[in-house]
């Protein structure tokens, strides 16, 4: 019966309760939607990092990571590694890459670039970069002509290049001799990461291996795409154990900033919500203190007729939890609906495009939140409701019933 009384009690002063409930509703709405935007942004960034930039796992000669010299290849064990990768069911696709730094020169300008020598059909199965070439922006490496190169839009802008423009790459070959070759731009891609687009170019592995005086079977990097990202740690451990001389890293280790985002975003979002709830908790404490003050005589009467302290505490705690939960549920439902709507329409932040793209974030955001977030948030709201009731309830428990009954 105390549960029912507590619920009825919160509607005694409708205006005051509604003010608190609305404050909680809008607090939670703002918190939930902000969290959804942040989570959506981070999820998109992580997804893009894996699908277009790092893949799930990369394998290198450890010395290559230290010195970035093309002589540090994966060779001696590559056959065995290839066989292993082909037989691992978790590995959806893998792509061997020649990877080196070069100077990219156009008629107008020059800049440093990272050149990826790839086998197009293998690379297309690992990286979705080929999908980022618009219809009027050419094609991915298709082997129709020799010396094709795919570049990013930001690099094209920087070097003033267009489709079918000529770009000269100069670099050191495997013997340390200065070498170079002219390439034709066959495709221009555009991701949401303008820094990535400005830096990375793609050429045919066979062709670049000849120019580098390298064995085309050798690679500086092998990128792995997994069927299920959840198996990443296990696959990484298996490969590291099977090939102790190679460096096997997952995308979180390759891109630690995005990796940290993935690992700590949830904690950060919960802290963000906890701060909002804490602020709202003080509002609830204030309301409950008013309630105790107004109902001093009634609380005295209840104690006098035999309602024990545990029940008085429970009643006040329930009122506080009901207030919090009513507002929170309304806020979460509204936040969820707003999230669903904006996830459907997307949020266009193209006015902030330059800043966002430099950080690798998309300008079209799709907010996202999972069910676990709402479950945890509900538990946090109940927790804050209980915490907010402790001080007012203690005040109520200290009332002397004989004095309280005579209060006006």
């Amino acid at each position, binding site marked *: 019966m105390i549960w029912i009384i507590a619920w*009825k009690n919160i509607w005694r002063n409708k205006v005051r309760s509604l003010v608190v409930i609305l404050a909680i509703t809008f607090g939670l709405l703002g918190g939930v939607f902000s969290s959804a935007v942040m989570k959506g942004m981070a999820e998109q960034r992580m997804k893009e990092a894996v699908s277009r930039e790092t893949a799930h796992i990369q394998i290198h000669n450890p010395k290559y990571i230290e010195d970035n010299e093309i002589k540090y290849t994966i060779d001696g064990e590559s056959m065995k590694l290839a066989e292993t990768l082909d037989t691992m069911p978790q590995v959806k696709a893998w792509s061997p890459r020649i990877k080196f730094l070069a100077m990219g020169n156009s008629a107008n300008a020059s800049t440093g670039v990272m050149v990826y020598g790839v086998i197009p059909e293998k690379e297309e199965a690992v990286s979705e970069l080929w999908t980022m070439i618009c219809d009027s922006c050419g094609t991915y490496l298709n082997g129709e002509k020799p010396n094709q190169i795919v570049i990013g839009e930001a690099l094209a802008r920087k070097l003033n290049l267009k489709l079918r423009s000529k770009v000269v790459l100069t670099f050191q070959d495997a013997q340390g001799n200065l070498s170079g070759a002219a390439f034709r731009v066959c495709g221009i891609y555009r991701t949401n990461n303008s820094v990535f687009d400005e830096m990375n170019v793609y050429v045919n592995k066979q062709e670049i291996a000849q120019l580098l005086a390298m064995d085309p079977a050798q690679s500086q990097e092998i990128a792995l795409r997994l069927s299920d990202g959840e198996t990443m740690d296990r696959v990484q451990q298996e490969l590291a154990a099977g090939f102790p001389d190679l460096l096997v890293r997952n995308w979180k280790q390759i891109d630690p900033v995005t990796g940290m985002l993935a690992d700590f975003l949830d904690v950060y979002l919960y802290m963000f919500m906890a701060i909002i709830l804490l602020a709202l908790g003080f509002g609830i404490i204030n309301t409950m203190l008013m309630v105790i003050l107004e109902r001093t005589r009634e609380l005295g009467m209840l104690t*006098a007729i035999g309602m024990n302290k545990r029940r008085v505490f429970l009643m006040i705690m329930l009122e506080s939890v009901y207030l919090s939960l009513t507002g929170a549920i309304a806020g979460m439902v509204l936040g969820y609906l707003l999230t669903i709507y904006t996830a459907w329409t997307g949020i266009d932040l193209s006015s902030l495009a330059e800043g966002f793209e430099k950080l690798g974030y998309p300008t079209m955001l799709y907010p996202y939140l999972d069910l676990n977030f709402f479950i945890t948030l509900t538990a946090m709201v109940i927790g804050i409701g209980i915490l907010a009731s402790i001080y007012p309830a203690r005040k109520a428990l200290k009332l002397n019933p004989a004095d309280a009954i005579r209060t006006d």
Partner: protein
Amino acid sequence: MNIIEIKDLKKIYNDSEIAVHALNGINLAFQQGEFAAIVGPSGSGKTTLLNILGGLDVPSEGSIQIDDINIGELSSRKLINFRLNNIGFVFQSYNLIPVLTAYENVEFIMSLQGYSKEKRKRRALELLEAVGLADRVNSRPSRLSGGQQQRVAVARALASRPKFILADEPTANLDSVSTENLLDIMEKLNLEEKITFIFSTHDQRVVKKAHRVVTLEDGKVISDESTQSP
């Protein structure tokens, strides 16, 4: 048989610099089925005596035995439980729970005692009928007159099957018709069901109905007159 025995009861308040002797050596006994009024001028100690009798305050000296239990020695937790099961309260300002109906107000105390829903319902309806409110069971206190609210309070006090009922100025806020009505109901319950009522009052209408009148002055009993035995 005495259900309440008060021996050498003293209550001294030391809140201010001067100690106030609210009760100054009270010796009283109440039997089952009494209909007693405690009267006296303001400051005579009526309310203090009722508070100590009801276990809402503790004596400075002396003892109160209720059915051989010295309530002054009970812990706070046990005292609350003792009040729930042994003492019924009727307050001057009715003190009903405003969000509950008349029926729910009466039922509530039985829910604290752990009675089943069915038992609570049966007894609450019986009691509301006994106080003449069978047709107002679903009314909230705000929809009832003062007299009706006080009758609900009497039904609530009876609901827990207490050993006695303490009523602090129960008619102070009632008009003469409501007072008469309430007193008739309480007298009837006293006569027919041997329920013990102890009032503190200034109201001569209550005094006239009482079967025993205890007069206090300066914290002492100055007269104790019975008009009829319980």
